[in-house]
């Protein structure tokens, strides 16, 4: 695992102009312990359509990993493979270094993986507490224990520094987009998720709402959760992510510490799968990743 980590960290760290020390520090921070979730050679095809091929990615705890990519690159498909909605056609998922099979969304939940989808799946007619506790209500003598649930919800929101709601007894339908996102995340956190996956959390949000969600993401990572954020908003990605992975046409074009990237290189990876802003040997190493680079991975393992 250390090797895999090393090689993954090494590529983009090598691949950019940032001081080498930064990359090493990031990789070093993980040194010795397995990432919370590791994807090894994950592929997914829908009939003849190869949506994902040979994805190798480490998602460490306590860090925000951003998954970038153009529309149709396979971002949603990848997180659905992790969340148990799709079965990967090939490859392996390692949870704390142990191979796991996630067949259903319930399997994912039981492992501690919570996914906040773009549609959020909140009940607009229920209030914030009711939504956060949905499916996990506390009950005394058959009657809902509203006070303990409200205290728990309040504490969770406080821990996440969500401070903009006037009353946690207001229906979720009356909240702004960012607040709804916050409620969905808080719900995931409350159910003891260790990995929180968020699909395009800031799409369709205004500037200040985006701010709220980004700070929430940072808080999550600070509290030790692994966070995987799907986004193609590069400003947001650079604001919160300590690691970046870029998908291009179903393949991993690049991945590594965020310090190893700049906006232009990520754009290049997103749009062409390679970046000319890299040194020659790195460019070939990365473009090699599309074809034979996978062998390097297997070797690394």
């Amino acid at each position, binding site marked *: 695992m250390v090797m895999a980590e090393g090689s993954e960290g090494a590529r983009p760290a090598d691949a950019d102009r940032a001081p080498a020390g930064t990359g090493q520090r990031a990789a070093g921070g993980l040194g010795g312990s397995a990432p919370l979730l590791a994807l090894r050679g994950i592929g997914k095809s829908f009939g003849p359509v190869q949506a994902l091929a040979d994805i190798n990615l480490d998602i460490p705890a306590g860090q925000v990993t951003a998954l970038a990519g153009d529309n149709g690159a396979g971002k949603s498909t990848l997180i659905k493979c992790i969340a148990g909605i799709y079965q990967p056609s090939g490859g392996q998922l390692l949870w704390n270094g142990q191979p796991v099979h996630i067949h259903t969304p319930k399997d994912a939940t039981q492992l501690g993986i919570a996914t906040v989808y773009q549609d959020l799946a909140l009940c607009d007619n229920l209030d914030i507490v009711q939504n956060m506790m*949905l499916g996990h209500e506390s009950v005394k003598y058959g009657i809902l224990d509203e*006070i303990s649930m409200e205290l728990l919800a309040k504490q969770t929101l*406080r821990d996440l520094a969500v401070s*903009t709601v006037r*009353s946690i007894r207001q229906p979720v339908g009356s909240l*702004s987009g960012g607040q709804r996102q916050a409620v969905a995340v808080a719900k995931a956190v409350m159910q003891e998720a260790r990995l929180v996956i968020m699909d395009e959390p800031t799409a369709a949000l205004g500037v200040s*709402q985006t701010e709220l969600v980004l700070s929430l993401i940072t808080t999550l990572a600070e509290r030790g959760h692994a966070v995987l954020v799907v986004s193609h908003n590069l400003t947001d990605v650079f604001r919160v992510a300590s690691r970046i992975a870029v998908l291009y046409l179903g393949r991993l074009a690049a991945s590594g510490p965020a310090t190893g990237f700049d906006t232009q290189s990520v754009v290049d990876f997103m749009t062409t799968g390679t970046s000319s802003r890299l040194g020659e040997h790195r460019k070939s190493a990365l473009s090699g990743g599309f074809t034979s680079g996978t062998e390097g991975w297997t070797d690394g393992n």
Partner: protein
Amino acid sequence: MATDRGEEHGGQSQDAGAQGGVTVTGDPLGGDTPPTEAAVVSSAPDLLADSLADYTRIWFRRVRSGESGALPVVLGLVAIVVYFQISQPSFLSASNIANLMGQAGFLITLAMAQTFPLLLGEIDLSLGFNMGIGATITVWMVSIAHPFPTWVAILAGVALTGAISAVEGLVIVFLRIPSFVVTLAGLLGLNGVLLWIYEQTGSVGNGGVIQLHNNFINDIVSGNMSPVAGWIALVVVVVLAGVFMITRDQRRRAHNLASPPLSVTLLKLAVMATIGVVLLLVLNHNRAASLLVTLEGVPWVVPVILVLLAIASILLTRTKFGRYMYAVGGNAEAARRAGISLSRIRVLAFAICGVLAGVSGLLYASLLGSISNNVDGGQYVLYSVAGAVIGGVSLFGGRGRIVGAVLGGFIVAVIYNGVILIGLGAAGQYIWTAVVLLAAVTLDAIARRGSSAT
């Protein structure tokens, strides 16, 4: 428009976060910010207000922006009552009010029953004939030929209607057929079954009618609580409600949670007590037409309805099942992802609807003193939907309260009673109900447009 509101909130968050950089810090859920329009509009004023004055202000703002709660229903009821009273001064006489309570009993129960499927965005069209079948079984079981104990007969009728609806629920869930279609088949099929039961003559009824010879069932509508018992019951209910509400508020305050101001709670109790006192004063009056007998007290059907209301309210607002009803009706996909079994909730909702239909049938038989194969199930199911919708239960699921259904069912009964009293026949009754129903849904639609436009 939701995003507009969002920007408002966001504006605050950005200000708060401006000093703190990325992380939004500040007093979480701080109560010192003034309530924003959006929050005020959509949440209960109870938990936002700090005083009675504040409560009133928030309440009025809600009404103006379309979230008027029970207000239009109550105003509509008052308007209708005033109109009938002017047209026919005997409308508010003690004997007519007692009469009205009897008629309202089964209509209110039907509206309550229909509320359960409606909260899921489903509908039970077979309710009316299901009610007729349940009543027939019960009345048949206590008829002279079959002296079953009363409670066995009642239980059998209610269990049968509950089972019939549960089967419809199972068909809806497992064959994935819309409830509209399944219960439409139920409406036709159960009408057939009802007729068939009476065709087995010799054993059942006489010319399609079975007389009810059972004092207990008869007395639900025709019997009255003694005046003293009525007063005692009122005091007990108000005191219990007061103790419950005030201790709950105190517990919330002890945990530092928002709770309604004491004045608001007391006001609610006072309103409740006043309605009870007025009703008792009127109904405890001797309303017998002859001097030789006394006829006084609250008909038993009133406490029966109140008990049903209490049980249904607790079920819907204070249990997991009730929470899941609203969740499934509000967003079925979200409920499913939260691990809620949609099938279970749907089947249970239909079963409860059937049980309440059975109770309604019992009240109906008690009102008529008989039951026949002539039960107008098609009409009554429409009244059940009308009652629930007038009371603010949404046809699209997730919205509405059981107390609204009770009020709505009561309005249907008031029209039913008043139109006959002022001498209009069935024609007037249908047209009145139609107008009120339309007015209710129009108000609701305007309210919703109003609130989504803020």
